[in-house]
């Protein structure tokens, strides 16, 4: 009988102690403060976390009002925090259709009166607005712009006496020369659909179309996108994609089974002369061949040597949510982030371009080939990222490069687009007053 009483007692004590441990852990997490305002800063670019941690530590040491806490848990977690009503105080995040959703729904505060906003290059605004905007607000400021084009092996080009091609026929001639010499002209990684969309699809289309104009006209077309409409993917993209398939004759024979990682390795080992990838591949290539001389040039898609553009994307944009707990402290940190030496040092470390008017172009030789185009505003955002993620445009692009008929695929894309436009109208690049 004594045992009978003691046993449940023991279990009850065990349960109670587990609960006590749990609650004390929760409480400890909540009350670890020292009187400074705690600014939650979301940043999840893996490669730059080291740089950003140092920067945050420096800022925290420089003043005693606020303490910035770096949160690297990623964009899904941020979406949940908006739902919950406790978003981060400030974020530097990739600017795409997903984060633009916060903009369109008015969840981000107006930054137009900050000092940082006044120094942003005005010609980048249309690129930001392509993802949608909120009337009367500058919801996000670009922080780092990545320019992407063709990466080439300078040594192979020099050995074969090839100049950087500026026209489509030059490019084909260069490929012929390389092939005749037994060198793979272009290394392709068709197994990873995003590499096809980012490189082959975007460079081909952006190299000869005015992307902003196309998507604006497409948005005006509304749900009426199809074989008979004035503007459609089928009409405008068929030509560029046919050229892309022509260029795909000059790739490695095993392209269909090669992924991004294989491509970086092969290109680093000098297996091909050109590689359609963005600057993020440089650090991967450098893991294998740190001293390889590489350059970049925009993919020429027409026979006009002056009609050259590079693909850009806003790799990082800064924003402060309306519901931020410490908006003033967050703004102070924002201004710190945009100080010329800080923003330029960050972009130099990531081979990115600084979006402020007074910034010097990057001096890394690997991206210098794109600097003049960026300076002159000869840039476009990849069409593949301007199509909402509900449409599997990456897979469509992959199908074309693996042998599908471009026109047929683009008809499917048109139908998808029309269906989606019926549900949610596409954003346009100019800020307009919302129609009731």
């Amino acid at each position, binding site marked *: 009988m004594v045992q*009978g009483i003691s*046993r*449940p007692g023991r*279990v009850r004590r065990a*349960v109670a102690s*587990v609960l006590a*441990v*749990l*609650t004390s*852990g*929760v409480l400890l*997490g*909540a009350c670890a403060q020292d009187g400074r305002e705690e600014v*939650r800063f979301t940043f*999840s670019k*893996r*490669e730059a*976390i080291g740089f950003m941690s140092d920067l945050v530590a420096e800022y925290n040491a420089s003043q005693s009002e606020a303490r910035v*806490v770096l*949160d*690297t*848990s*990623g964009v*899904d*977690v941020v979406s*949940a*925090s908006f*739902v*919950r*009503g*406790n978003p981060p105080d400030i974020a530097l995040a990739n600017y795409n259709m997903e984060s633009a959703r916060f903009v369109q729904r008015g969840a981000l505060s107006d930054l137009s009166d900050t000092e940082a906003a006044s120094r942003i290059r005005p010609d980048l605004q249309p690129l930001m607005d392509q993802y949608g905007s909120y009337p009367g607000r500058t919801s996000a400021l670009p922080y780092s712009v990545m320019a992407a084009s063709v990466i080439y092996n300078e040594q192979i080009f020099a050995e074969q006496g090839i100049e950087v091609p500026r026209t489509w026929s030059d490019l084909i001639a260069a490929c012929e020369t390389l092939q005749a010499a037994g060198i793979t002209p272009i290394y392709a990684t068709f197994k990873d659909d*995003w590499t096809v969309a980012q490189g082959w699809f975007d460079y081909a289309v952006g190299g000869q179309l005015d992307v902003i104009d196309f998507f604006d006209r497409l948005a005006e077309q509304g749900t009426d996108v199809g074989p008979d409409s004035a503007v459609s993917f089928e009409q405008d993209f068929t030509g560029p994609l046919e050229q892309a398939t022509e260029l795909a004759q000059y790739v490695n024979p095993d392209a269909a089974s090669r992924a*991004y*990682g*294989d491509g*970086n*390795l092969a290109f680093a080992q000098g297996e091909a002369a050109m590689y359609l990838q*963005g600057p*993020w*591949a440089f*650090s*991967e290539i450098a*893991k*294998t061949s740190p001293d390889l001389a590489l350059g970049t040039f925009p993919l020429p898609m027409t026979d006009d040597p002056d009609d050259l553009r590079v693909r850009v994307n806003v790799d990082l944009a800064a924003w402060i949510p309306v519901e931020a707990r410490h908006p003033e402290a967050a703004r102070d940190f924002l201004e710190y982030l945009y100080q010329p030496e800080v923003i330029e040092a960050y972009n130099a470390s990531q081979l990115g371009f600084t979006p402020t008017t007074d910034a010097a172009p990057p001096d890394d030789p690997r991206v210098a080939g794109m600097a003049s185009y960026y300076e002159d505003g000869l840039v476009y955002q990849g069409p593949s990222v301007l199509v909402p993620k509900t449409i599997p445009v990456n897979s469509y692009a992959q199908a074309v490069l693996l042998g599908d008929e471009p026109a047929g695929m683009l008809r499917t894309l048109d139908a998808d687009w029309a269906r989606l436009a019926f549900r949610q109208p596409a954003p346009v690049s100019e800020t307009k007053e919302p129609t009731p």
Partner: protein
Amino acid sequence: MATQTTSPTRGTARGATRRVRTERTSWSWTVILVLCAVTVLLPLYVTVSMAFKTPEQAVDGQAFSLPSPFSVDGFVQAWNLTTFPVGAGISLLVTAGTVVATILLAAFASYAIMRNWGHRLFRYSFYYLLAAMFIPFPVVALPQIQLTGRVGLDNPFGVILLATMFQLSFSVLLFTAFLRSIPEELEESARLDGATTWQTFWRLVFPLLAPMSATVGIFAFLYAWNDFMMPSLIIADPAMQTLPVRQNLFQSQFSNNYHVAFASYLMAMAPAIVAYLFTQRWVMEGVTQGAVKG
């Protein structure tokens, strides 16, 4: 090995012919089992060897090569990037809480339901609990994020609560099936000795449920330890995040950090493997005990 040990105990002629057949077929089974083992061991080998490689070797495309030079850089980086001790501690807390809460609550509920099966309320509540099996977390994620946020449960404690709730239906199913096999006469004799319902449960039924509790515990452990989506959405403070969510950092489209990622996965796997090794013995004991009785 296992098939050989069962048959020699029977000494009859029929047993002998069966033994010959068992030995012949055991070779083909061995081959199949070896193949099955390879599908597990090969990735495990790659994980271990990759974790000890240098960044250069990790991307050279030779997944099966041995690490040379041998490097622990991956472990150091993974440890620092995820603040491993904190992450593992919180994961452990969430897992332990979920396992304990699931076993207790499911056992309570099953006992109440099974012993009152004739009562409509209890029968319907069983169906109600079972119905929850068909509701996946993503479907109810949004309202739950809001709800936990409002009542101050956007922390590991809220995850324990929700994880327990999601484990409950399956665990109740297991427990009720097991409870059916426990004769009610045992409990009646305990009652004759003057035991209350509470005492009957703790002193008689719960110990008898032990093998099933081990199974339920293993399922709850694996679920809570490996779950990514729920903690990532429910826990608001990144400093209180669980290990799998912290490790999400290593999966990026543009860069491959296999050695760091695999080192981190290895460290996260270790507790799960250790726990499984221990509880597996329990389950095997429970199964054989039940078999002798039946």
